[in-house]
């Protein structure tokens, strides 16, 4: 029996299409370290663009089946890994987030729709998938992240740089950690911008696959300064289903479009409630508003999250629900949304960014 050539193996693997990137996995450079042993064993590394890849398992079994069917192949070993690609333009590479590959903003326009809850669980879900994740609470006036991760550790300074605190495997920074307690932050707009820049430049974020940024509500001074100061891969917009919330979410989305920040999609929070007594599903704030708004605006709908006591209880207790109750409907919704967000950011990393040269 003749041995299959590496070209033959790549030939069959090129039939696997990445549904999000719209190209085959071989031309995307995802197949690495391909070896064919004299005994006919084929082994290779399948490098995904995110550990939270929604089609990870399908890719693996497709690769095994396709290569296994080549005559002469006795065994197939597929090593699944992930390497997140960088995806935004940097003002000065040495200064701003030098080790960060992707920055994902979570915004809403309207307050009180669960933006911080979504940001914390999105970060935790990406971390659980195996990525290095940071969480930046950019809400200077109403920082909610410290309570939701259950940590009030004071960030330490090392060589003049602030160290993010570690919580549930996430690197976290929040104004609520720097100014804890009941003291309010009373800042005018420009000061907010400076504070945010400081949290990027003066904080030692290290190497991160994803930095999730919890933005404050509004489309004014604070958000605008943020969108200028932070180089963003994209923004996920959170809203609740009723019109009064989706209308404002649409405004936020259009603001980011004007600032050339790619909308990764809409997330519907508080989408339904299952009564623990009767088991009946209630749609307290209506249902499907975000999905129809997403359709109308031509952006992806990333998923819906139920209204669950567990999500609120665990947030108040300081453990994101994706960690404390991974089997709950809420946690599964967050995990699904995290893989959708990761897929959308991967697409951004294959975008050809403008190149600017000054002579």
């Amino acid at each position, binding site marked *: 029996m003749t041995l299959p050539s590496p070209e033959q193996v790549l030939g069959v693997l090129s039939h696997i299409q990445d549904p999000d990137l719209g190209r085959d996995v071989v031309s995307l450079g995802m197949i690495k370290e391909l070896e064919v042993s004299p005994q006919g064993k084929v082994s290779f590394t399948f490098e995904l663009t995110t550990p939270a890849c929604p089609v990870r398992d399908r890719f693996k079994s497709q690769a095994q089946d396709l290569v296994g069917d080549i005559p002469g192949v006795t065994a197939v070993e597929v090593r699944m890994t992930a390497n997140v690609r960088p995806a935004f333009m940097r003002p000065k590479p040495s200064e701003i987030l030098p080790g960060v590959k992707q920055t994902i903003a979570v915004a809403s326009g309207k307050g009180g729709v669960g933006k911080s809850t979504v940001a914390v669980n999105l970060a935790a879900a990406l971390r659980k998938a195996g990525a290095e994740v940071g969480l930046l609470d950019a809400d200077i006036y109403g920082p909610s992240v410290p309570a939701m991760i259950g940590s009030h550790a004071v960030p330490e300074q090392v060589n003049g740089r602030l160290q993010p605190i570690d919580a549930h495997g996430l690197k976290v920074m929040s104004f609520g950690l720097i100014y804890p307690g009941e003291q309010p932050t009373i800042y005018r707009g420009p000061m907010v911008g400076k504070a945010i820049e400081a949290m990027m430049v003066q904080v030692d974020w290290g190497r991160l696959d994803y930095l999730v940024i919890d933005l404050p509500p509004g489309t004014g001074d604070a958000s605008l300064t943020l969108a200028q100061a932070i180089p963003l891969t994209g923004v996920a917009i959170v809203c609740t289903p009723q019109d009064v919330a989706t209308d404002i979410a649409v405004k936020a989305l259009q603001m980011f479009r004007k600032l050339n920040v790619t909308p990764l999609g809409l997330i519907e929070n508080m989408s339904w409630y299952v009564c623990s007594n009767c088991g009946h599903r209630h749609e307290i704030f209506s249902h499907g508003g975000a999905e129809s708004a997403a359709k109308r605006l031509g952006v992806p709908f990333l998923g819906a999250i139920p209204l669950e006591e567990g999500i609120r209880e665990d947030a108040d207790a300081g453990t994101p629900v994706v960690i404390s109750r991974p089997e709950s409907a809420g946690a599964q919704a967050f995990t699904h949304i995290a893989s959708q967000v990761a897929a959308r950011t991967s697409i951004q990393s294959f975008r*050809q960014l403008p190149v600017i040269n000054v002579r």
Partner: protein
Amino acid sequence: MDVVWEDAHRSTYSGERLRWACPCAECRGEAGAPGRLSRVKNLAPEELRLQDVSLIGQYALQIAFQSGHATGLYTFSLLRRLCACEECAADRKSDLGPGPP
């Protein structure tokens, strides 16, 4: 300054073209008052030479000239409209008449 866009189109800008297109309020005027660029006919050479270009968010460039003038944020859509290549100039003629000076 050269920009290669997402669609691989290449634009080249002279400092002079960029300076006369400065979108800042001082140059363009605000609240009905005419701006500086509509009042002057000539600019000194150091006003026309680029000093530095920095990225603002993901949507604009802040261009600093040797004279110290740096208040203009040139959005990518403005820069694309300012492209001086023959193809884009021809498109502009057929659309809206002459482009910016």
